[in-house]
């Protein structure tokens, strides 16, 4: 009776018509020790199915909680820096150098500073005049040529 039932179930099973419950019955039957000899070949199949249910995934999954950097805050920081720059730039940086109201006074000041420039310049130029001495020295070196001439005469002979 039971065997008959199992055979029917097997047929249904092969046609893909069994429910999960009926398949469970089959699995139980074929993993028991009392399998009819002519159905022996089904045994490894069901044993395999059950054995495969045990296999597990053992590897770790590296779940990183990504902290997504918010670029909005960069713009906020930039604006803050700019504002600070403007604020301190206008209060500290004294760009007013002063002007003369009276033209005569302005001319005097101007000529004074130009005079200063010219005296300093002349002082500098006068020290350069020592270079003439160097020229003088090199001109006397010209006498060396005479020596060279005489030596050449000697060595020719």
């Amino acid at each position: 009776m039971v065997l008959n039932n199992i055979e029917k179930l097997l047929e249904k099973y092969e046609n893909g018509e069994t429910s999960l419950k009926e398949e469970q019955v089959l699995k139980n039957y074929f993993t028991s020790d009392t399998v009819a000899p002519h159905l022996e070949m089904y045994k490894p199949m069901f044993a395999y199915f059950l054995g495969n249910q045990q296999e597990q995934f053992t590897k770790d999954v590296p779940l990183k909680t990504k902290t997504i950097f918010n670029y909005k805050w960069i713009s906020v920081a930039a604006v803050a820096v700019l504002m600070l720059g403007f604020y301190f730039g206008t209060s500290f940086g004294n760009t007013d150098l002063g002007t003369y109201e009276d033209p005569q006074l302005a001319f005097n000041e101007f000529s004074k500073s130009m005079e200063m420039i010219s005296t300093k310049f002349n002082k500098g130029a006068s020290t350069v005049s020592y270079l003439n001495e160097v020229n003088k020295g090199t001109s006397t070196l010209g006498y060396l040529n005479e020596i060279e001439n005489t030596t050449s005469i000697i060595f020719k002979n």
Partner: protein
Amino acid sequence: MTQKEFLNIVMPFKDKVFRLAKRLLVSTEEAEDATQEVLLKLWNNKKKIAEYRNVEAFSMTMTKNYCFDKLKSKQAQNLKIVHSNYEEKNTPLQKQVELNDSVSWVAKIIEDLPEQQKMIIQLRDIEEYDFDEIAKMLEMNNTAVRVALSRARKTIREKLTNTHNYGIK
């Protein structure tokens, strides 16, 4: 969503994802990589998880697609030489011993089935999903799943009967 909440969702079916990947990709390492990839994808889209109607079915579909991509990619073609294309004429001793174990016959038979049937056998006979779920996961209709399943089961039975009779006679 915190890591813990995520793991609570994922834990119940991560093994199923792994086994499906292994069924398709054969090698354990490849299957582990695939599972990792699928879980990471889920994690990265964790904001959308609430929107999915069935996270498990969705993950299975994702696994299937990922494995198919892997199998199609060049990398997999290289691997194939190792897995199935290369067959030694003289079965090595270890294989012979293995083949004595009749359960591994079943593994070998299933390995030879077409990809779709492999997946359906995996999902139905090992993971015990019902047909509607399988149909959803594999993006097929219900009858097509039944037909493929029936074909797969018949093939397995035929081949098993052959090996069984061969063993006796």
